[in-house]
């Protein structure tokens, strides 16, 4: 019973609390900020506390039957708890960072409301066992992302926010049709009642539209680099904690846990992702806007996650989940570092930056740590995830696919190195820059160190991912 309380607190604290924040903001700005962090942290702590029951006593669940055969159900199994803890951990750090970043802008009340609501929607989605609930939370997140990308309210910014909204909602509507297709076959929206079945191919295509648009995979990806016009903590939130991870999480939820993926999709999905990985990595090498480069990098790394989740191998599934964690930590850090850089030099063009390592030492080192993790260089955490994902392609018997992804990984090394060198090394272009506020620098340092510790103490996260895949009952 205690577990159920935790589960509900985890979902509804940020979801409901978000709407109190503008009121707190009227009273005192600091109170609002602290409360926002508190709501997000509550979600993290609750999900962390759900870990032990999920691992030892089996999943905690809450279930309400509604009329017309509908129902609302939340289930805290190991996969959901893992995802929730990852998201809310990174989101907490991002909210903390926002204290320093956002204080100079207008519309702060709305900002904190949307960020907290965003995380609440993520928590709801992660724990939902009902396709309609998943869809609803999915769309709440789209609304939040629309408002947050358009935070600066300028005309081009708003246009890009609209683009992101329309692409992801368009995908989601197609997915909804797919969900209805599933309902037509099974007579229920409740995931727990349709385990182990296969879905029709046309349904699969529709659902993939939703997932790939949310997880920004070619050819539904271009809204993500464009979303770089948002404030840096928001892009960090989109890329690391909540938005793009929704797609891969739902993929894992539906096709690892619930449905059997048909053999053809075990080939098609990795190859779509492979093309996406290469094209976006190439584009990252040409772009000059620091946030767009990192955004393309996200598209490229999401492909690795999809590869792991879709090869139908145990090591791939575990690697893909581990990749979600490591990528969240590292990519969150990269965007937050980009925010500090952007604030101190007032440009996003890397050609106009250089030699910042001397003035921003902590940011530079954190950026490098996170970049090494994304590149997959040991002893940083990304190494294990990358290796396991690549290995899954070979275990699955597709060496060509593995080679393609290795090429993608090589491109990752090149483009991230290019950013680091152009921004932090070389001749100093700015002399009057200084580090961000202590909240901002502290946040990036935490993420950088976590990326390192994640690799050194790899046995901790892999215990969880191994537990998840071993209990799927497929291998």
């Amino acid at each position, binding site marked *: 019973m205690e577990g159920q309380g935790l589960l509900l607190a985890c979902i509804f604290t940020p979801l409901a609390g978000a709407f109190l924040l503008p009121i707190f903001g009227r009273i005192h700005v600091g109170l609002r900020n602290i409360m926002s962090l508190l709501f997000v942290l509550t979600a993290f702590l609750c999900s962390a506390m759900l870990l032990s029951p999920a691992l030892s006593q089996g999943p905690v669940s809450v279930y309400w039957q509604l009329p017309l055969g509908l129902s609302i159900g939340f289930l805290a199994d190991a996969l959901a708890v893992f995802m929730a803890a990852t998201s809310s951990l990174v989101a907490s750090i991002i909210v903390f960072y926002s204290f320093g970043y956002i204080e100079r802008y207008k519309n702060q009340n709305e900002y904190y409301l949307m960020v907290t609501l965003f995380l609440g929607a993520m928590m709801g989605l992660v724990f939902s066992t009902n396709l309609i609930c998943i869809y609803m939370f999915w769309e709440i997140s789209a609304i939040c992302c629309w408002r947050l990308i358009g935070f600066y309210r300028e005309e081009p910014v708003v246009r890009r926010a609209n683009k992101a909204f329309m692409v992801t909602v368009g995908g989601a509507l197609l997915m909804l049709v797919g969900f209805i297709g599933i309902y037509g076959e099974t007579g229920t929206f409740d995931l727990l009642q349709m385990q182990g079945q296969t879905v029709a191919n046309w349904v699969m295509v529709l659902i993939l539209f939703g997932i790939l648009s949310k997880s920004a995979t*070619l050819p539904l990806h271009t809204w993500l680099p464009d979303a770089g016009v948002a404030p840096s903590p928001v892009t960090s939130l989109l890329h690391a904690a909540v938005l793009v991870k929704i797609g891969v999480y739902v993929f894992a939820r539906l096709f690892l846990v619930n449905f059997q993926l048909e053999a053809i999709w075990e080939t098609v999905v990795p190859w779509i992702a492979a093309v996406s990985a290469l*094209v976006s990595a*190439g584009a990252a090498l040409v772009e000059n806007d620091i946030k767009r480069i990192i955004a393309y990098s996200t598209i490229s790394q999401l492909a690795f996650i999809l590869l792991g989740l879709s090869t139908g191998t145990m090591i791939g599934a575990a690697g893909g989940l581990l990749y979600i964690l490591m990528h969240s930590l590292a990519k969150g850090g990269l965007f937050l570092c980009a925010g500090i850089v952007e604030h101190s030099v007032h440009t996003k063009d890397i050609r106009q930056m250089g030699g910042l390592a001397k003035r921003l030492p902590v940011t530079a080192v954190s950026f490098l740590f996170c970049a090494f993790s994304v590149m997959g260089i040991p002893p940083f955490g990304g190494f294990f995830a990358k290796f396991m994902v690549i290995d899954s392609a070979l275990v699955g018997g597709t060496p060509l696919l593995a080679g393609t992804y290795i090429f993608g990984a090589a491109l990752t090394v090149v483009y991230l190195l290019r950013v680091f060198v152009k921004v932090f090394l070389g001749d100093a272009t700015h002399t009057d820059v200084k580090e961000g506020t202590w909240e901002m620098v502290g946040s990036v340092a935490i993420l950088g160190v976590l990326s390192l510790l994640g690799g050194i103490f790899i046995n901790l996260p892999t215990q969880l991912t191994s537990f998840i895949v071993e209990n799927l009952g497929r291998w």
Partner: protein
Amino acid sequence: MGAMFGNMAAFMTGGSGVNLLWLMVVLPVALAVLAVAIPRHAFAARSACFLAATLADLLLAIALFIAKEGSMLLRWTDFEINLAFRVDPFSGAVLLALGIFAVLVAIYSVAFLRRKEKYGQFYCYYLLTLAMANGAVLADNLVVLLFFWEGLMVTLFGMLLIGDRQKPATAVKALVLNGIADLLLMLGVAATAAHAGTFMMEGISQLPIEGLGVLGFVCMMAGAVGKAGAMPFHSWIPDAADAAPLPFMAILPAAFEKILGIYLLVRITFQFYQMVPGSVMSIVVMAIGAITIVLANSMALIQKDIKRLLSYSTISQVGYMILGIGTALPVGIIGGLFHLINHVMYKCCLFLTAGSVEKQTGSTDMRYISGLGKLMPVTTVCFLTAALSISGVPPFSGFFSKELVFDAALESGMIFYIAAVLGAFLTAASFLKLGHAAYFGPLRLPEGVKTEDVKEVPGAMLLPMGILALGCLIFGVFNALPLSVIQPIAGEGYDFSGWPDNWTLVAISCAVLLLAVGNHLFGYRRTGEGLKAADHIRYAPALRTVYDCAEKRYFDPYDIIMQLIKGFAWICYGIDRAINWVYDVFAVDFVSGLSSRLRLMNNGSVGRYMAWSFLGVGFIVLLCLFLV
């Protein structure tokens, strides 16, 4: 003493119930952190910590070398990816070699880096490098091997950035080339594991090179030779000579990377896979070796900077090792490994002498320095010993190992033997030029350096050089000593110690050396300068253009790779922009065009609305009729 090491060995490998193999990794890391934690101005304390770490590592390595076996296992993840360490006679010997060179170069570094900025960073990276190298050698699991192997990239990047943060190009080049080699190794490891069905190295033995095995073998080999610095993964090394502090060159490209690369190559070719003499793979490996020997030596010959010349020579020597191992013949493997150990000794020594020159004159450019022999006699003697060894003059160590490689090369194909001999000629010519220009001839110093300021370097720098130079002689005269350790690695019952068996080959080698001397004298007579003694080759009619292109870096594989990647990136960018156009322009135009058309239909005219209504009703009626 022996008893003490015996006890330690038993202790470390689990004989007394405690397993401390991990100390080889953890101890250097812990002391590296400690060295950085000590305040910056306490040079002595930091250096003491640094030296203590390398000494402790050497003691541990000696203990493991004596113990010869031991293993440990720590759970990391599922899927057999566990932290597994194991020592066997081969890895024990490699650990010992790493430990000895680490101590020698460390002593030198402390004297060299005195009063230099950022020495603390160097200490830290140095110890981390040592830890990673130890880990890679101890690894008994392919993923653990990869973990430590790739981890070396981080410290490499850091060390190359110590020199000059304003010019990161070399660091980037090194990281990209190593990164590509390491990613290939990652692919190779995954393929090998899939082929063998296990990640545990103990369980992988003599796989056939077919199917997935081809991918696994080729990619792992690329990773190994890439680390060793063979072509085409070599081109960052000469650049690093300009960028990094000199002890870096002595410890990484000259020593550790060669040792690790060749160690892995031997493991791949003779443990994991079954490379047969004369097979395609064997020829591929030999070809890499032969090409590296000839091309890198040709480049070494025309260098004007001591450090750059030594770098190219380092690349060329790894060619001999790869050639020897690639023959897959016992004599070749033993020769390759023996050449490895000799190479590390003389090349370390040569780099250290270059460091002494740099420390005292501030330059290593032979156009500005000359005739240092009288001012720095001990350095000169050390240089001469090492140079005789690398040139393959009997009875120095290099002679014996080269003869073994020659023997194996001749047995595998005349072309490989010719490449090896040509390489020997070029090596001897390069070092005649280097020695003549830098240490003999008229005294010349860079501007602003006074003759009385240039004197012999302090004892702490001479000691490592002296030990290494002495080693070059001892390992030649008493070559049974190193060979008794190396020979068991190739199998039972081999004995190649003593004077080479094949007198014809020895005669040819000596003739080649004499030819090199004659060539040098010819060039010297022509130009009157030691430095220009190779100019008749540099500007020979056919070679001139090739050399010009090489000096303009047209052949640098890094530049070629980066050009290809850039081209690929622009294509990708084009695809991306095209997709974006669909969203940003096409979709918008399509929707607005459609809606403006639709608006035209609703223009308020009652007649038109009536017509639409009738059409609609008609359609519905037709539909109903059709359905009924």
